[in-house]
């Protein structure tokens, strides 16, 4: 009995010209020698390509004379962003065209310290001139077409003005009701239709100045504030009293509620770190995010709730994944100054920063993402490359390329110094403990953050 292997060409060649060539598969590992080594080579190439295409800066929105200290994004809309500057001007930008849709040149005297959109598209701003103003921020005259008359844009008057006794630092609108909260030295709750605050919230022993203030997204009556006396306070506006207060080791400059996980909150601290807390258990942070070399001035969650961006006094923007200790990416620019406000766009593809130099900058959330329409095969290839990079991230070379970022010299040096200082301190503590001079349990760095929890 004899038979001989024969590959008939008809089975392996396209039957007509233009047809795809039939492919055959043999998954026997013997016919795929060096599969792992070759995959590693591909992963290495993917990592290199990713760094090559990493051009995160998209563009900047100018128009302010002074630094930008507040940004507000409009819920449910991708293209609108409002920015408030140190000279009291407010501009509503259109992101795709990078044009100014609305301009309120002298909305406030002095810094516009807080800015937010209401659900129905009006704009609420507060300033150090002790005023809160409500603006009609409709960018279309009758629902379609832009307002093209320059004067009509400029000459808008506020719909309502609310005056307080001290300078306001923060404002946030209630999700559904016609209420908003402002932070000065106390927290005021205002009704849009009344000229004076309907309630005042403060913790009994507090002498704080509020630095940031945000309503929770799902429990809309819960309000979180951070204060200059190193506190973080949770209020319930229904009971009009503070539910819980934390005294931290440093003061916090900004806070942000996780949009998909209502109990999670992010604090940007003056001690160069960010912390996430679960508000059900405030005894210690769920994670600390270390990397900034100066105070963190602003933070914002991605709408997906998996990542967040933070901008700091060290002139860098960092992007973090939740529960990962080091930042995923660091952005910086030659001319970008200290970042005072950060916002993720609602499609989570871009990050906006407002900095001291008066520009609002647009960055890609994924540095090497390609903008514009891309072919399906291109998308597939990119997904494959990303997966490869992730799978081989523990390889020494791939990991090194993935992690390496070039930093401004000042930031790099500061980081080195910081590492050295922290290490020296830990060494010293370790020595003291070993010699018996220091007693008590070893406290992890993260459990040193919360000093006191008050009810």
């Amino acid at each position, binding site marked *: 009995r004899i*038979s*001989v292997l024969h*590959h008939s060409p008809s089975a*392996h060649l396209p039957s007509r010209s233009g047809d795809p060539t039939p492919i055959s598969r043999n998954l026997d590992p013997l016919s795929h*020698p060096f599969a792992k*080594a070759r995959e*590693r*080579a591909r992963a290495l190439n993917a990592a290199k390509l990713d760094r090559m295409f990493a051009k995160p800066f998209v563009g900047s929105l100018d128009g302010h004379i002074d630094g930008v200290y507040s940004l507000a994004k409009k819920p449910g809309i991708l293209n609108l962003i409002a920015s408030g500057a140190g000279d009291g001007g407010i501009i509503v930008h259109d992101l795709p065209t990078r044009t100014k849709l609305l301009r309120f040149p002298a909305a406030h005297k002095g810094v516009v310290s807080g800015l937010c959109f209401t659900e129905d598209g009006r704009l609420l701003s507060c300033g150090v001139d002790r005023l809160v103003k409500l603006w009609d921020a409709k960018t279309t005259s009758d629902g379609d077409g832009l307002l093209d008359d320059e004067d009509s844009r400029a000459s808008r008057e506020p719909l309502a003005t609310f005056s307080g006794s001290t300078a306001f630092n923060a404002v946030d609108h209630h999700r559904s009701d016609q209420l908003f909260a402002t932070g000065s030295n106390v927290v005021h709750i205002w009704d849009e239709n009344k000229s004076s605050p309907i309630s005042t919230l403060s913790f009994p022993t507090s002498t704080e100045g509020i630095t940031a203030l945000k309503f929770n997204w799902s429990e809309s009556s819960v309000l979180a504030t951070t204060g200059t006396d190193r506190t973080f306070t949770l209020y319930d506006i229904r009971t009009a009293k503070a539910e819980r207060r934390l005294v931290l080791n440093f003061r916090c400059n900004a806070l942000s509620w996780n949009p998909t996980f209502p109990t999670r909150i992010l604090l940007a601290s003056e001690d160069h770190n960010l912390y996430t807390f679960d508000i059900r258990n405030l005894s210690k942070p769920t994670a600390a995010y270390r990397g900034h070399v100066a105070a963190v001035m602003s933070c914002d969650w991605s709408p997906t709730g998996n990542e967040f961006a933070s901008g700091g006094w060290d002139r860098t923007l960092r992007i973090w994944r939740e529960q990962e200790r080091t930042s995923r990416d660091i952005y910086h620019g030659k001319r970008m100054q200290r970042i005072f406000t950060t916002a993720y766009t609602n499609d989570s593809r871009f990050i906006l920063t407002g900095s001291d130099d008066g520009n609002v900058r647009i960055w890609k959330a994924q540095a090497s993402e390609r903008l514009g329409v891309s072919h399906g095969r291109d998308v597939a290839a990119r997904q494959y490359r990303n997966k490869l990079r992730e799978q081989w991230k523990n390889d020494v070379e791939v990991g090194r390329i993935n992690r390496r970022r070039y930093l401004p010299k000042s930031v790099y040096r500061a980081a080195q110094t910081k590492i050295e200082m922290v290490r020296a301190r830990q060494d010293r503590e370790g020595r003291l*403990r070993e010699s018996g001079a220091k007693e008590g349990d070893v406290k992890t760095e993260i459990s040193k953050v919360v000093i006191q929890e008050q009810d």
Partner: protein
Amino acid sequence: MDALIEAGNKADRKRRRSYGPPKDSSVPQSRDSPLDYKGKGKETAKQPVKPAEETDAVVASISRNTTVPRTLSKLGSKTPKTEVKLENNKFTPWAFQHKLHHQARWREEAQEALEDVEILKTEERGVMAAEGLMERTFKMTQDDIVNSIGEEQRRYRKEWKLDGGAYRSRYSKNGRHIAIAGKRGHVASFDWLTGKMHCELELRETCRDITYLNDHSHFAVAQKQHVYIYDQQGIELHRLREHIDITRLEYLPYHWLLVSVGNPGVLRYHDTSIGRVVATHKTKLGACQSMAQNPHNAVIYLGHQNGTVTLWTPNLDEPAVKLLAHLGGVTSLGVDPSTSGRYLATSGMDGKVKVWDCRNWKGCVREWEQRGTGHAEVDWSQKGFLGVASGGTVNVYTPPSIITEHRGSPPLYLTHPIPHRPLISARFCPYTDMLTIGHANGLSSIIVPGAGEPTFDSSEVDPFESKKMRREREVHNLLDKIQPDLIALDPDFVGTVAEPEAQDEFADPLHVASHRLPRWEKLKRAGMPDPGMTSASANEAKKASRQGREDDDMEIGYSASDTSESEYEVDEVDNGGGGEAPVVRRKKKKSALKAYLKKAGGNVVDPTVARIKAKMEMRRKEIQLARIKERQAMVHREPSALDRFRRPPRL
């Protein structure tokens, strides 16, 4: 329709609920929705799932033709059959356990999918089997075989009558093209299936070997002086001047390395993608006439004149393995590709053919006398057939008997006489049942049923590829080029966890601040168990370490009877089976007195030494007593203000 969406949502919710660490697989999963997936798609097709409510006609009508997207079904609530269980869950984060669970599941699914793929193998492997008791396969002549097979297959039997001297040949990786080089300088490259000639050259100088590079578009010829690279049209592209007097060439396709060895006995790796020699090794074993590559780890095997076989990688200056294989010179080598390079066949001037197991070099697996006299050439086919061309015949042996340990020659599978001596090359054609022998009168190819791999993978090699596919493959191969440094005897080391670095013996871990120590070291110091240990063994280890510390204390005083030499000793703690970590106990360095006593001692009982020993013994006991007293006093003493200056007690 709403009902359908509701059902889908239910299924979704269920899926989300089921994200947890593996549950007991014996618990039956409730099936509350018609859209709940059911294992593989195949199964669902076979037995349509009963809708939850018979009345809902819409759901029933749609669900028959609807499946959950495959991407979603992957994340099912199925628990892996082999449950991932970690010792000591306390130390393993939940998310990590979750990940492991999914990995195990995916691995199983991939395995299942792999079984399905067998269907795709449509090609039938060739076969030659004896039917009667008295029939023998080796009695079949080539004419018999040709007469009993189809018209198409008959073309594999060929005789090329050429007069360029003895010929060496080489097939391209996909087995479609063959390059031949005659001793007197006749070089040709052609597509043997269609008979299309790519080029034919008369070089008018000695040609000793030929090899294709990445594919048939380039080939390299070892000529009298140097190695030359030609393209498909036969145009000389490069003269590699570094390679002098070369006898054998090999090409490592995944590393893009051209490897040469010659009469000077120098092995050179030439990177053809950058055009530079990346490694040069002096074998110091004289002229070399035989070379082979292991296709699965790219290690080069050389056979030398004195009968040794050496294994080489670019990053080692010396052979990775050196083996005395034959009593005469080694004439030919071959590595078995069907067992991922586990077996090596060698033939020597002593007239023997030997098969070696590359994992264990202690003696060969099987050896036998070659048939006929003269140089023998060996080659393995993809399916593990061994062809030996020696004297005036070609003999083919089949796998299981080649590597079973037995005396004498394995049973012959096939034999074919070729009267044109010498036979200087034997090559099996990949993906075809064909063996080509180069001899003084040209080349003959014979049919060896069952030698070739029936199914090729188009993503790796394709005998039927078009020009465009060839070009794309070349680019992709170049992008996936593996660095020469990664060649090692074990190719699977890529992607594995590196061995922990050897600890510095002289660094005392006690002087390193605790936060700088790795976690296991910290835990050890705190007397806590290693996370990898089971709780029982951890307790034992704890006990043992405590005991070890006590022992240390005991050894501080001098014990005269103790004359053990070792500085460190590894103490295997016996705790009734199970994997336990050995406890390393450290001993005090011997004192000068101890050394003196030992030197003075010997077998002689010296009264002085005896006196000193007795004195030391007493002193030791005193110290011990004092320490015990001190400890007792510590417990009962009134606290004093001066306690803060006390050193912490030794416990």
